């Protein structure tokens, strides 16, 4: 029972992070804070994906001398496929962050501000 609740704790944490990140993106006007929000959404997504790959009784998906992944014809490790997808998602998140920061720095040099509203006014 406690194990079952544990799953919900992780899912709640993941969804809370996604919600917080989305809130930051929607309410802030500072470009850097928007990027912070995107990063937090990424963390929440990754936590969500790893959580659904996990089960309270699972072991890590690496063969070692003491860690056997298949018992009685049943795989008992955590699901390795979502984990490999998360590896991809993390790297893609870094790429997006770096590019967004480069654009933000350039925006600051050209407009002298980081405020989305002032950038819009500057264009008019």
């Amino acid at each position: 029972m406690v194990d079952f609740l544990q799953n919900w704790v992780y899912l709640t944490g993941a969804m809370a992070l996604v919600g917080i990140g989305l809130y930051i993106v929607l309410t802030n006007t500072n470009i850097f804070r928007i990027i912070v929000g995107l990063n937090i959404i990424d963390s929440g997504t990754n936590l969500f994906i790893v959580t659904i790959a996990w089960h309270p009784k699972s072991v890590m998906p690496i063969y070692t001398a003491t860690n056997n992944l298949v018992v009685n014809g049943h795989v008992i490790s955590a699901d390795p496929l979502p984990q490999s997808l998360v590896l991809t998602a993390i790297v893609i998140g870094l790429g997006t962050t770096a590019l967004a920061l480069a654009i933000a720095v350039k925006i600051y040099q050209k407009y002298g501000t980081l405020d989305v509203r002032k950038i819009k006014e500057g264009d008019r």
Partner: protein
Amino acid sequence: MKTYNLAALLVGVPLLMAFSIPLFGFISKQLAKWITVLTLGFEFFFGLYIFLWHIYPFNVIMGNWLPPFGENLYIGPFATVLIILISFVGLMISIYNLWSANHGDVVHFALLFLMFVGGSIGLVSTGDIFNIFIFMEITGISSFALAAYGPERRALGGAFKYLVVSSIGSTLYLFGVLLIYTQLGTLNIAEIAARISQTTSGLLTFAGILLVAGLAVEAELFPFNGWVPDTYTGAVNPVSATLSGIGSVGGVYVLFRILMTVFGKDGNFVSTYGNIDLMALVAILGSATVVIGELSALVQKNVKKMLAYSSMAQMGLVAIGFSIGSKMGSYAGVFQLVNHSIAKAMMFLILGIIVSFGIGEHIEDMKGLWYKSPFLTVTFTIGSLSLLGLPLFGGFWSKFALVDASIQRGGWYDFVIAIVLFASVVEAFYYLRIVGYMFTSKPTSTDKIKVSISPAVPIVAFSILIIAIGVFPQIVGGISWNAAHELTDKMGGYVLNVIPTIVGH
């Protein structure tokens, strides 16, 4: 299952060339641009080879792991027509870039442009639902950087807005993919498509809404297309042409691959599993996009912004065509997609030439263009007439098919007729207004615009193609019909071609 693994080069060669472009860039900047042209030429002729020798439909197996275990590319009629379209438009724009891309970091610009086109080709050919996410990110990241390129500072704001919206969209898409994975335990499109009815319907509906929301960003559908005008206006003209002519093609392809092949329920008209018919939802979103896009385009005084809104509206028409769900509707959608992509890319390129000669983007600045450059005026007119659907131009056949399909479907899809007519009338109004300005008013100064050879080649090619499609619609019509068949008959057209032993419904 037919396999033709050599076609992995469709993705492999652009990647290899993109990785090597920085090395060529040490030798000469012009060489880097020529590498782009050569690579996209290879893609185009490979696509033509697949089409003319009728090698499609086939699978490409990656790493000798057959689907549903490994990843595969599935190149059916739909993918074939889009590969030819994307590589042709990309090739033409890369020829244009030989002349236009001159300032800033040209080597990295060429590299990102090449990978944008290469990523779009991968996007339309992949057979794995997570691989779609990867290719969406490849096209996404390269287009953010391309959109931020240019001497004008307004490019940066548009690029940043696109980046934020698009990364939230792809996160939603990822959630949708993983929700489906928890139920079916596979990521292969064919296996999901065959077994989609086994999922709980509540989860299926939610996952579908997440996927549609994520993909609608790239497909420029209504509540998620706020980035379109800013980004298109801000970017330099070849980049706007690329985003409009290639980026949206990939977005629409994936949206309807997911809706019709993965979620689709066969019947007289394709609908989707789950509590909500997502096809109807997309039809509503598409109609809203058309109305909003056309009305916004009507009031614009800036020609580039007008083209951006018009691009949005055209994508709405494409989405409506597919979402009718019949074979005729999908045919209209594919045809409209081809017409839109060619004509809109050409018009952005023409605008680029005009702007480079110091003439502004405002509608008043177009006055008397005929006296300065008859060539540009005539080609711009051809593009406009095709977009608004005059007979003897490409756009006529697709709008005709769209009306035909909605009459066949009947019911509340009758309103599509009204929307197509409305769109044509409004488009006629604002495009003919520009064309009228071009022909009538005599300008104060009549300095001739001399168009050099490299930007002229793509424009001539595009306008010849538009007229050719208008006169002989069977050039695109035949394969579009096959593509429509692939979309509407999901077991025979897609699933059994990928996993032949899977048991049908």
